[in-house]
């Protein structure tokens, strides 16, 4: 069932502070199977309870995995401890790690990326809204659940709030989502856009993809290269920041890596050349996708599945 998550996802939450507790309640309400919490010295004792739901809380990831067979971790741990929390999951061979935390030091992420490369674990984030998969009721993140609905379009974005914006438009246009992934806005993240595109390309439950990028970096060019080389499913792309004035240049050497490639124009040109359909306006992502699906004969109006 679509990518990264499925009906067998057994979620564990790391970091049961106020925000972690609020968010995991909303995931429980959404129907997500949460099997464990990890929070050394958790004030609530060894169990977390919300309405009819409850799950055990352990001091370490290793114990949580051993006792509950958790296979996915969501991290709400504050920035100073976030990299440590990710490393703890890698050490425990947790297959999928999603880190929401904003403000993780970049040198911590250098260590994390190096550890990930030598492991079987996959990382989404940090500084991201997480992953949501409406059909399996898996909400591994901070999404407002009401705007999402099951369907055949995948969404991948660097920005969190733009996932919600794009999905709101899709849902209003009668287009449901297979899986929505916010890869995160930091310089160093786990899986990047092209890796998620590859997952969608290989996913029988996804017929088309919305790709939302931003100015800066080279990730969209890598995504464009993948689309051109391997992608047969339609991609609708939007790049935020086309009208942002170039910031005061501090003359740092970053420009030598990306040069002009960091601009929205360069990214849009690469994506257009790769065959992506460009939505110039962020307000037209939904209508553009509807047109693309209709042309491909893949538009499934809500309720159509039941009528067939």
């Amino acid at each position, binding site marked *: 069932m679509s990518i990264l998550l499925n009906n067998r996802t057994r979620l564990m939450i790391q970091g049961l502070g106020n*925000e972690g507790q609020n*968010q995991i309640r909303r995931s429980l309400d959404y129907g997500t199977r949460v099997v464990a919490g990890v929070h050394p010295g958790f004030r609530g004792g060894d169990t977390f309870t919300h309405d009819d739901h409850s799950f055990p809380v352990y001091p370490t990831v290793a114990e949580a995995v051993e006792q509950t067979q958790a296979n996915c971790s969501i991290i709400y741990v504050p*920035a*100073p401890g976030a990299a440590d929390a990710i490393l703890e999951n890698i050490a425990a061979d947790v297959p999928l790690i999603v880190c929401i935390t904003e403000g*993780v*030091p*970049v*040198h911590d992420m*250098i*260590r994390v*990326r*190096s550890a990930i*490369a030598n492991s079987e674990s996959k990382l989404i984030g940090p500084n991201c*809204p997480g992953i949501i998969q409406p059909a399996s009721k898996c909400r591994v*993140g*901070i*999404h*407002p659940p009401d*705007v999402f609905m099951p369907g055949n379009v995948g969404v991948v*974005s660097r*920005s*969190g*709030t*733009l996932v*919600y*914006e794009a999905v*709101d*438009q899709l849902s*209003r246009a009668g287009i449901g989502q297979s899986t929505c992934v916010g890869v995160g*806005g930091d*310089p*160093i993240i786990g899986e*990047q856009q092209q890796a998620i595109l590859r997952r969608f390309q290989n996913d029988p439950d996804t017929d088309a993809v919305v790709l*939302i990028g*931003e*100015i800066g*970096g*080279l*990730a969209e060019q890598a995504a464009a290269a993948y689309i051109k080389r391997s992608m047969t499913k339609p991609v609708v792309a*939007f790049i*935020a*920041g086309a*009208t*942002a*004035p170039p*910031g*005061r*240049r*501090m*003359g*740092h*050497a*970053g*420009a*030598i890596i990306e*040069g002009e490639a960091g601009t929205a124009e360069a990214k849009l040109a690469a994506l257009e050349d790769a065959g992506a359909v460009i939505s*110039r*306006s*962020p*307000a037209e992502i939904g209508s553009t996708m509807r047109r693309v699906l209709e042309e491909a004969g893949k538009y499934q109006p809500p309720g159509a599945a039941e009528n067939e």
Partner: protein
Amino acid sequence: MNIHEYQAKEIFRRHNVPVPGGGAAATEAEARALIKEHGPDVVIKAQVHAGGRGKGRVVKRDRASRTYNDLTREPGRHEGQISGRRRGGVRLASGVEDGLKEFRPLLDKDNRLVSIQTGPEGAPISAALIEQQTSIAHEYYFSIQVDGASGQPLIIASAEGGQSIEEVNRTNPRAVLRIPVDPVEGFPAFRGRTLASQLGLPSSAIRQAGEMFANLYNVFTEMDASLVEVNPFVLTGEGTVLAIDGKVGLDDNASFRHDGYEAWRDRSQENPTEIEAEEANIGSYIKLDGNIGCVVNGAGLAMATMDTLMLHGGEPANFLDIGTVNRKDRVVEALRIIVNDSDVKAIFINIFGGLARVDIVAEGVVDAVNELKIRQPLVVRLNGSNVEEGRRVLHDSGIDVQTADELGDAAELAVQAAATAARRRSRN
């Protein structure tokens, strides 16, 4: 966070990276003492958080904008890194009297250093770095930064230093070496010696250069730097290597484990409104040229909101990512900054709640309208977490506000409101 060259060099010195003898002066007495100690032949360098100092100009504040236009119109016309005509931000002098003559205009509070990187306001000069002059046989470039794609540190080096590395990369890309660093191995001295050899340094300087590169890598990791750049480091006439420039960018996210960061911060180099926004803890704010004040959550949505306004013929007055709002007083503080901007003719609030709860945002908007006596027309678009309560709060408050559910419709309303307000203003 950027720091000054003299601060970067203090860090270099502590990590055994060779730098010229010298120090920072903020007063004439300090300058005099430094020239006596390190002179008679000295170089005096204005300390600002911007590059292009040597080709820049030190001018009275009220001439800054005109000078900036001159510089950006014909960037090639202006003299080189170290100006013989003594009007830039990097000056040579000989002896105490000559040195003080060059030092005084730099520290004049009415003066600004204008370079192609400072913007039209120019930069106030916080101090001057006074160093002994160096005999230069050859100039090289060296930097370390984070490469997001590989997730590894990346060293960039070139035997064509002392000029813009972007320019070298454009005209002679083969002269630019790129060396990805395995973070587990780090950058031990033997890697440094290999690089020194690739750069064509003479055999006698290779051991010292290798150690300098390894030590600069230690600066990068131990200081949690996002950038360490030395342009140029030089081979001296005596055959040794020396970092005669130094730039260090620090990762603000790591400030919790570095007591030193706060002391190195120089607020005089930052935009006052942006500092005000930071102190009010309302996320990230950048002033722009238009007339529609924006309050948005999330950097991506904030940029997309600006894009939408411009596609509808409007112009944003600012970029403001309010971040995750779970306290209504932050909304009030954000709107206070927007309302106090005299360019703002209409206000557009666009919040899509995820972590943020839009009912709290709505309460903040109501408080702000009552507290700040907002006169500009207000367009509010709420969506996401707790949206029904948010919309009810707005509706029940009775405040004068236009609302729309969809981004495009809301942007259209904001553009019309700004246009109407601007027309009304111009009629009066």
